[in-house]
């Protein structure tokens, strides 16, 4: 039997409850509350993922950058194709470097870029951005995209995901794992407040320095974006 006190613990700010979910406040990772040790996992097809790997088909020995931290599934998949995988954990780095502070601080932006996108002369043949960009404020986001443009080889692709619900105060915080070339395993680890919500027009403007942008709108209100350098 669930008591009223426990019911109160299960409710997130805003009223909706998601039993078993962790609730994050950006910049305050220590405030995350795991009520139960359960995560919501779903398998979903991804046209964006399919397109991304279609562009890589027939090639081996490429360098792929994954910005959402290392996972067994992504490592297995990318390396089984004969590619080298580079792993960064942008969201963890955001929490560590900015820790809830203003993301427009130039010094911290520089620190973030030096920590995460400093590869010397290395260039990448593809970048799995996942949904990390929506947790970046405009100044940091612009600087990050500028840097990504310099480290991605021309004619290469970036795959990014953006939540499309413009009214959402909090969005599902997913871990993206590749099941196969057409499917993702989405593990929801609570919710997180996006810094910005993008529509198609704002995404076109965001990626204007790149050669092309292709959108796929899916269920779960996730917008998949393939960007060509």
């Amino acid at each position: 039997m669930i008591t009223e006190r426990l019911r109160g613990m299960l409710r997130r700010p805003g009223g909706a409850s998601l039993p078993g979910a962790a609730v994050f406040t950006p910049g305050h990772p220590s405030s995350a509350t795991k009520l139960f040790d359960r995560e919501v996992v779903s398998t979903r097809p991804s046209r964006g993922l399919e397109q991304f790997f279609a562009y890589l088909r027939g090639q081996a020995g490429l360098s792929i950058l994954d910005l959402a931290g290392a996972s067994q599934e992504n490592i297995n998949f990318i390396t089984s194709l004969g590619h080298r995988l580079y792993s960064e954990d942008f969201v963890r780095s955001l929490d560590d470097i900015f820790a809830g502070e203003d993301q427009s601080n130039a010094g911290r932006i520089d620190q973030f870029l030096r920590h995460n996108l400093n590869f010397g002369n290395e260039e990448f043949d593809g970048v799995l951005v996942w949904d990390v960009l929506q947790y970046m404020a405009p100044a940091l986001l612009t600087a990050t995209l500028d840097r990504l443009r310099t480290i991605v080889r021309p004619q290469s692709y970036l795959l990014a995901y953006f939540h499309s619900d413009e009214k959402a105060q909090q969005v599902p915080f997913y871990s993206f794992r590749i099941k196969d070339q057409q499917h993702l395993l989405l593990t929801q680890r609570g919710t997180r407040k996006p810094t910005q919500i993008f529509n198609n027009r704002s995404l076109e403007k965001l990626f204007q320095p790149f050669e092309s942008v292709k959108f796929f709108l899916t269920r779960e209100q996730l917008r998949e974006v393939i960007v060509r350098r």
Partner: protein
Amino acid sequence: MSTMPFKAPEPETTRGQASIGKAVKINGQIYSKEDLYVDGDVEGTIELQEHRLTIGPNGKVHSSVKAREVVILGNVQGNVDASDKLEIRKDARLVGDIKTARIIIEDGAYFKGSIDIVKPEPAKSPGSPAPRPPQSAPAPAANAQGNAVAAEVKR
């Protein structure tokens, strides 16, 4: 019921191998011809060609590492070359480039760097004829799940 005092078994992690305890700090090169468990601080290089290296939960290693098998429970900053297998456990942290035949990374582990999977060459049996050069194969087709056929790259 036994009245003998209970003796806790020797920790599995240090049995039958050399170990560097958590109070020990080493600055230099370590070579070992047996399995090694490091739970202290090491700065330099660690090399165990045909053996297993375990970095314990208190281990802080700031060095390049080379071994047959590497298990990380603590903190490593440096490149890791594990000819057979590398395991990065749940609360471990590795910053550096990896070269290995197999990798296992648990959820919760932190890794920053590159991963190169390098499979060992198959051993040639003595007296066997030299292998023919491989014929060129047709382009691999995707299977029903859309998975591409794996290709190996040696660097």
